[in-house]
């Protein structure tokens, strides 16, 4: 029939639907047969896990919103009502609350994997950039969510963060008033934060879709960072990676469950169990752990505007990472200098996180500044490293090194092509 999609499905009902709306073909193509490099390690689980985490956050959030009251007078009480009176309300809230921490944990590992194995390089620049956009959206959503329980840390955290925008010349104060919905943080602020906190996850969902579309155009990177040469290098997504992702998913659920059921308050601040009090500033205002490194960068710069620029710059610089890195080699496995730079960057994030958790006094000031310089130093050094570094020889193909290390023992010499190709022919 004219205009209808030619469906390969045998089942008449599926075929009828698929020829009009080829969802089955789409799923089968993108998640069934989708050719995926066969050499992924478990770092390649984290994107799928983050997607699951997003769905969990949306699901729990919808039910929390049914019981939450976004007013300054009642927000704190309504959260306690959820914890004490709503059936399994404590479970919904503890999953949602710790789900935010889980989300950042997954995302940070996911970003580390992208940086270590050079997943941001051509042709995956837009894939990477949508990912950075997702990170920014996630941070905004998490921040606004943290304000909703209207405890002391919610209120004062909101005060600190929204006031940052006041540093912007000319329009700063106007933006702050717009964020607050008035001239102080209060009911209108809470209303709009609640509304945006409900909206942004769906925006995130949309950008995740773009992220996945971009991924399925370029195909996945892999631990070797070399292109797929032939069908010998790939396996269909299903059942191979659905199975491997399921293993990662089980471990993720296990970690999540242990946190939610046994240590649900390990990420929370005691001060947030005190209702927001406009007249009393907490001893120390600290953001959640996942924002601490950026908070440290903010406070390491003595000038307010420059500090705000450094803080936002520390994330925005990721957008241009694909062009800062001049090396043609993707995977850090074959980049002796870059490998240690990435590991040092991770250590630096821990240093900054630790500085961010403490008052900016004594040695913390110096540590924070060193950490900030190292952070931006990483990106500043990248163009030169690509030029200076002598990469190790790349393997010929994805199947090649794997097979030779299996059969040779101690990574012996190359095998004849025929021998290497044989085991894959049945796949």
């Amino acid at each position, binding site marked *: 029939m004219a205009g209808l999609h030619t469906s390969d499905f045998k089942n008449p009902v599926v075929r009828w639907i698929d020829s009009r709306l080829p969802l089955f073909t789409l799923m089968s193509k993108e998640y069934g047969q989708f050719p995926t490099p066969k050499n992924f390690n478990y770092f390649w689980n984290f994107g799928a896990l983050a997607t699951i985490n997003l769905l969990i956050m949306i699901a729990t959030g919808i039910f929390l919103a049914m019981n939450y009251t976004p007013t300054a007078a009642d927000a704190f*009480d309504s959260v306690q009502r959820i914890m004490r009176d709503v059936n399994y309300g*404590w479970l919904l809230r503890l999953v949602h609350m710790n789900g935010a921490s889980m989300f950042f944990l997954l995302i940070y590992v996911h970003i580390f994997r992208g940086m270590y194995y050079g997943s941001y390089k051509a042709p995956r620049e837009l894939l990477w950039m949508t990912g950075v956009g997702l990170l920014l959206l996630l941070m905004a959503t998490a921040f606004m969510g943290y304000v909703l329980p209207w405890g002391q840390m919610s209120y004062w955290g909101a005060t600190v963060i929204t006031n940052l925008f006041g540093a912007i010349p000319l329009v700063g104060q106007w933006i702050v008033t717009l964020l607050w919905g008035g001239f102080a943080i209060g009911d209108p602020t809470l209303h709009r934060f609640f509304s945006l906190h409900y909206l942004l996850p769906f925006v995130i969902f949309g950008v995740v879709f773009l992220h996945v579309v971009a991924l399925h155009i370029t195909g996945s990177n892999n631990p070797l960072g070399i292109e797929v040469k032939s069908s010998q290098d790939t396996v269909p997504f299903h059942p191979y990676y659905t199975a491997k992702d399921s293993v990662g998913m089980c471990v993720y659920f296990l970690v999540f469950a242990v946190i939610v059921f046994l240590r649900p308050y390990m990420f929370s601040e005691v001060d947030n169990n005190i209702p927001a009090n406009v007249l009393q500033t907490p001893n120390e205002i600290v953001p959640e752990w996942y924002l601490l490194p950026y908070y440290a960068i903010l406070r390491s710069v003595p000038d307010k505007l420059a500090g705000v620029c450094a803080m936002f710059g520390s994330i925005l610089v990721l957008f241009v990472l694909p062009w800062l890195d001049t090396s043609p080699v993707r995977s850090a496995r074959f980049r002796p200098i870059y490998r240690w730079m990435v590991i040092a960057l991770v250590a630096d994030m821990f240093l900054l996180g630790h500085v961010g958790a403490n008052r900016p006094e004594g040695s913390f000031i110096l540590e924070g500044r060193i950490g900030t310089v190292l952070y931006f130093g990483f990106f500043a050094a990248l163009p030169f490293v690509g030029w200076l570094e002598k990469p190790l020889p790349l393997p010929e193909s994805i199947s090649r090194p794997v097979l030779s290390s299996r059969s040779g023992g101690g990574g012996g010499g190359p095998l004849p092509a025929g021998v290497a190709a044989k085991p894959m022919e049945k796949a």
Partner: protein
Amino acid sequence: MRRVVIGLAGALALGAGLVAPYVARAEEAPALPHMKWSWQKNFGLGTIDRASAQRGFQVYNEVCSACHSMKYMAYRNLAGIGLSEAQIKAIAASKTVPGPLDDEGKPTTRPGLPSDHFADPFPNDIAARSANNGALPPDQSLLLSAREGHADYIYALVGKGYVDPPAGVKVPDGLYYNTYFPGHLIHMPPPLADGLVTYADGTKATLAQEAHDVATFLYFASYPENDERKRLGVRIAGFLVLLTGVTYGVKRRIWSGIDH
């Protein structure tokens, strides 16, 4: 791959080493006594000691509640520390709570019901301050969860903290010296003493015992979901361990045909 893991572990260890000394930054107070609480037993899987929590409720009911509200707790919640329905009804009925307006529109009172929240000792914050030398006794529903040190802090504050001030420290009228209170000067007079209550279960009511029991009850007030959460958690975690094992087996089997 192994190198990456080692590198990451190194970075984590470095980070943890840097952070560890500062996590428990002491506030110019002696170190808190580290007690082994019932909910911390069995690798943190412990449930709340109900006998202790019931004694703690008795202390709250007879002593603390004279000044402190506990507004998020309802009498029905006491089932969570093992009180029977009849006991809860009797406790609630012994309280006076605000009732509906009468025919002339005047406020009335009525005896409490299990569904009522704990009766407030004062009609409002101003009345509470005026009766307490200007200080507002904090609501105790979330008191324990809102203090660094949690139960250890509550125990130390009311059980051990009231000591003679060091030489040279002048304590103004209406304030009391407490080693564990930040700043040391607290408005609350020593609330507990040896033999202040007579425990229904015959336990000897020493100061330390009362402080321990009241901390246990305040833990329940802050985390009433503790027991149910842990019981459910153990089952879910056990199931997930099995599921992980099975899934890993399936994955191995699926991948067995692939040289990778």
